[in-house]
């Protein structure tokens, strides 16, 4: 079964590009507190979000919640660096109220963070939902890379995704594009 995007490195030469479809895109024209994908169709197997983003509040996380759940039902782990020679890790094992590290703010003028987020088996009602993300920004002298994974401990199908910065607003020109990946 082909899975595209960041997973594709493992299956070079065997991509089934007909299985990847654009669902909807949110582009920020005026700074806003959040963007939300609603009525996500259940016709796919996995979801992928591709983003460029920044915030008005500087270097803060941009996080996500599913189906409007604000409870302590999320967990996440991350491997990250600022490029200074070391690598670090961080986590919230059980009690997070959101999946953090969806993207990141705090960019130099003209720079936007880039992110690719995979949400696996998003409509499977037998599983908690698992996701992973790859976010990076480089300000030519400072930067950050986040390689993260996490879960939403709920078996409901994901039908909406809300994306919000920790503080401030999403800057103009931030864009989140939602794609669906079909199974065989």
């Amino acid at each position, binding site marked *: 079964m082909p899975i*595209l995007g960041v997973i594709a490195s493992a299956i070079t030469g065997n991509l089934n590009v*007909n299985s990847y479809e654009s669902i909807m895109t949110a582009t920020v024209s005026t700074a806003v507190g959040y963007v939300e994908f609603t009525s996500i169709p259940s016709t796919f197997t996995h979801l992928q979000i591709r983003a460029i983003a920044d915030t008005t509040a500087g270097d803060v996380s941009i996080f996500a919640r599913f189906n409007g759940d604000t409870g302590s039902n999320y967990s996440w782990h991350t491997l990250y660096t600022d*490029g200074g020679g070391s690598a670090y890790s961080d986590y919230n094992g059980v009690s997070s109220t959101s999946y953090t590290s969806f993207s990141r703010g705090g960019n130099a003028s*003209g720079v936007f963070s880039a992110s690719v987020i995979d949400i696996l088996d998003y409509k499977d009602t037998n599983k908690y939902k698992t996701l992973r993300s790859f976010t990076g920004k*480089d300000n030519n*002298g400072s930067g950050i890379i986040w390689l993260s994974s996490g879960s939403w401990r709920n078996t409901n199908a994901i039908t909406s995704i809300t994306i919000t910065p920790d503080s401030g607003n999403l800057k103009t020109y931030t864009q989140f594009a939602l794609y*669906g990946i079909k199974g065989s």
Partner: protein
Amino acid sequence: MAAGSTYTPIATFTVSTAQASYTFSTISGSYTDLVLIINGGTTTNNQFRLNVGNGSVDTGANYGDTQIYGYSSTVGSGREVNSTNPYLGVASTTNSTRIIEFMNYANTTTYKTLLNKGGDLGQSQYDASVVVWRSTSAINTIQINTNAGNISSGTTLSLYGIAAA
């Protein structure tokens, strides 16, 4: 609603004789993101590098990158500032695989940010990096090269376009 297939092959090149670089030119601006998959290696233990541009590749000091890597049992990170030829990760005569995401490559408002992940068996390293090209020009030219030596024969470079709704 979904807009149909949006992951489109643009071009694939297979290196027949080892060469110093390969350039994708006149790339259409009709997609939202580009994805480049490299599967192959280099003629000695080297690094894949790249340049991008509009009309021609930019070799000025207009790039920065931040890296994270795991090498054998060691983890670490690094960065390059005002680079003329940013780092894409190690490569060797043994198989290297790499995927590079060119996010919102055609817009003329923002600097361009690239995400890169890959691994190399010969140098026992897995790495990820983010590269910024400090230009608001659309990217329509991508050159993959190395810091020394050549790209090995048999290496494939496959370029895809992803269009958002």
